[in-house]
């Protein structure tokens, strides 16, 4: 994997630290959920995104609270990056009534609409139509809002990508397609599944910008996303950003992700782990001290531990809730 150098960012210290904190929070959240899964404290399976933190954070830190995102089955990172709180996330993962969705959505369907998080989605490509619609509303309202659709390299081949891309270009919707290219679908290398020149070129031929970036370099992601987001805000229409990254774990918590990916491949990506990579940049630029890093780690660890303890004590929804929220 080519290691693109990211330009020195013009971001303020607080923003950079917040980026770091969110990346760390995602990492620890995913590790904690994995632990919760192994201990049998959550029902179902978890779809974890550790390794992909820079993509989620680099993109979402360019967004306003009233901008929206749609996410995927692997959505925890996007939600935290967009400002989602880990406590109701953890409760949702465990199916508790204190969860973001009162335990009705679950691990794959977390949403916080007040923060513009229109929801993770269990249908591969399922967020693309919704994101286009949010961009439509944004354009109609004229307040410079943008809509971001996260999706994977597998989702590229869903017809709805193509249908909405065509519409988004024609109608100049403020829609940013963000492809997290981690080279795999569930258990298949997506090189075998994508024909021709790949997504960036597909985006360009549809009439929008198609930009590729090192998805493990949060500053590079931020800068690329920022440019596309600002253009969209200002009426420039949609764009596509491909972030090359890697998930460390299995497709879900029930499998280690090692049967269809070589040790070397996994290890080579771990050498370019987005968190130490960013850490080193921050240290080199003296934006943060080793002590501050340590105390941030402690703080995040503690927050996650507490979230688990709280969620474990929280009640399940009452059975009477089962028929609520079917209709408004």
């Amino acid at each position, binding site marked *: 994997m080519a290691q693109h150098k990211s330009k020195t960012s013009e971001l303020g210290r607080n923003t950079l630290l917040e980026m770091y904190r969110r990346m760390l929070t995602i990492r620890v959240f995913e590790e904690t959920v994995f632990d919760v899964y192994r201990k049998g404290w959550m029902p179902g399976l978890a779809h974890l995104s550790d390794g992909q933190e820079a993509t989620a954070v680099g993109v979402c830190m360019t967004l306003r609270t009233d901008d929206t995102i749609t996410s995927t089955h692997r959505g925890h990172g996007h939600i935290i990056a967009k400002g989602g709180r880990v406590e109701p996330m953890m409760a949702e993962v465990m199916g508790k009534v204190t969860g973001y*969705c009162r335990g*009705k959505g679950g691990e794959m369907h977390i949403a916080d609409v007040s923060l513009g998080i229109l929801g993770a989605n269990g249908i591969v490509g399922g967020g693309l139509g919704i994101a*286009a619609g949010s961009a439509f509303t944004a354009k109609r309202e004229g307040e410079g809002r943008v809509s971001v659709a996260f999706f994977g390299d597998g989702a590229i081949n869903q017809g709805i990508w193509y249908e909405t891309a065509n519409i988004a270009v024609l109608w100049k919707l403020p829609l940013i397609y963000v492809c997290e290219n981690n080279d795999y679908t569930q258990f298949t290398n997506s090189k075998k599944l994508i024909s021709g020149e790949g997504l960036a070129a597909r985006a360009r031929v549809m009439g929008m910008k198609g930009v590729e970036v090192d998805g493990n370099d949060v500053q590079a992601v931020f800068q690329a996303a920022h440019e596309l987001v600002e253009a969209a805000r200002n009426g420039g229409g949609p764009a596509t950003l491909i972030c090359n990254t890697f998930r460390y774990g299995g497709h879900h918590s029930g499998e280690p992700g090692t049967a269809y990916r070589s040790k070397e491949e996994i290890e080579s990506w771990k050498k370019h782990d987005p968190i130490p990579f960013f850490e080193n940049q921050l240290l080199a630029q003296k934006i943060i001290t080793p002590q501050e890093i340590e105390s941030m780690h402690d703080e995040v660890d503690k927050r996650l531990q507490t979230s688990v303890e709280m969620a474990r004590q929280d009640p399940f929804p009452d059975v009477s809730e089962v028929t609520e929220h079917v*209709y408004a």
Partner: protein
Amino acid sequence: MSTRELTFAQAIREALDEEMARDDRIFILGEDVGAWGGVFRTTETLFEKYGCERVIDTPLSEEGFVGLSVGAAMTGMHPVPEIMFGDFITLVMDQIVNQAAKMRYMTGGQVQVPITIRATMGGGRSSGAQHSQSWHAWFAHVPGLKVVLPSTPYDAKGLLKTALREPNPVLFFEDKVMYHKIKGPVPEEEYLIPFGKADIKREGTDVTLVALSRMIHPTLAAAERLAAEGISAEVIDPRTISPLDEETLIQSVAKTGSAVIVDEGFNRFGTTAELAAVIAHGAFDYLDAPIERLGAMDVPVPFSPVLEFATIPDEEKIIAAVHRIMEGRRR
């Protein structure tokens, strides 16, 4: 109340027009709905009146534009996508069923999805197997959706206006044969028709005829002829099948003791099954003959009129079904 006669299509258009004037979150999108005014002329003049930003010609990308509608609804708009032929709704099932219908539930009530999907239905026009189908039963099987099937201009207007104020996804099925052929009184004054309230189109005492959408018309004609034979038929139009006004159906059969269900969807696993099952359960102690189910014949809709008309319920078939009931009773 002053009343005029409108066609079914005019009633639809008037509902759209009034609600668009009232609520600027409403917009229409679909193929040729704009400048052309809709293939069935139901959006005529709206493009001129509300502009290309609210009456939008889409590419032939049903999944894309319905998907977009779901997201627009979730963020505060009220989209009205048009599925030109209801047959094409097969292309957007994921957007309707996996997205629109469950977004509210999955988020624990965080969002509303006010989307009104207008789709046509019905055969009898020699349009062949892919332009004649009536799939409303599918959607009534999906929790989170509401399903509306108006049978008259009056109902069409009142129910569509209700749909356009609904915070939930609505499938609104319009039988295309009625658009320009069925005329009826529509008051000038504003009115709404609530969902889940069946309409007794004709009162009677001997047998209950339940019919939906266009099927109301041959059913009323059959009732007229039955009256001449001395059989008093009650004709009920549920108007919405989700929610379904079970009460009115059951009460009618409690009175008449028997029922015929008439629907243009395919018979098996269709609307006739649910309605028959509901009545058989709710009016168990009152039924004195098996319920007759008259859906469309379970074959792909054939082109040739001799075949096609054989598959669609009509006056004769309804009368024959009532006669079967009457004979069963005499035995």
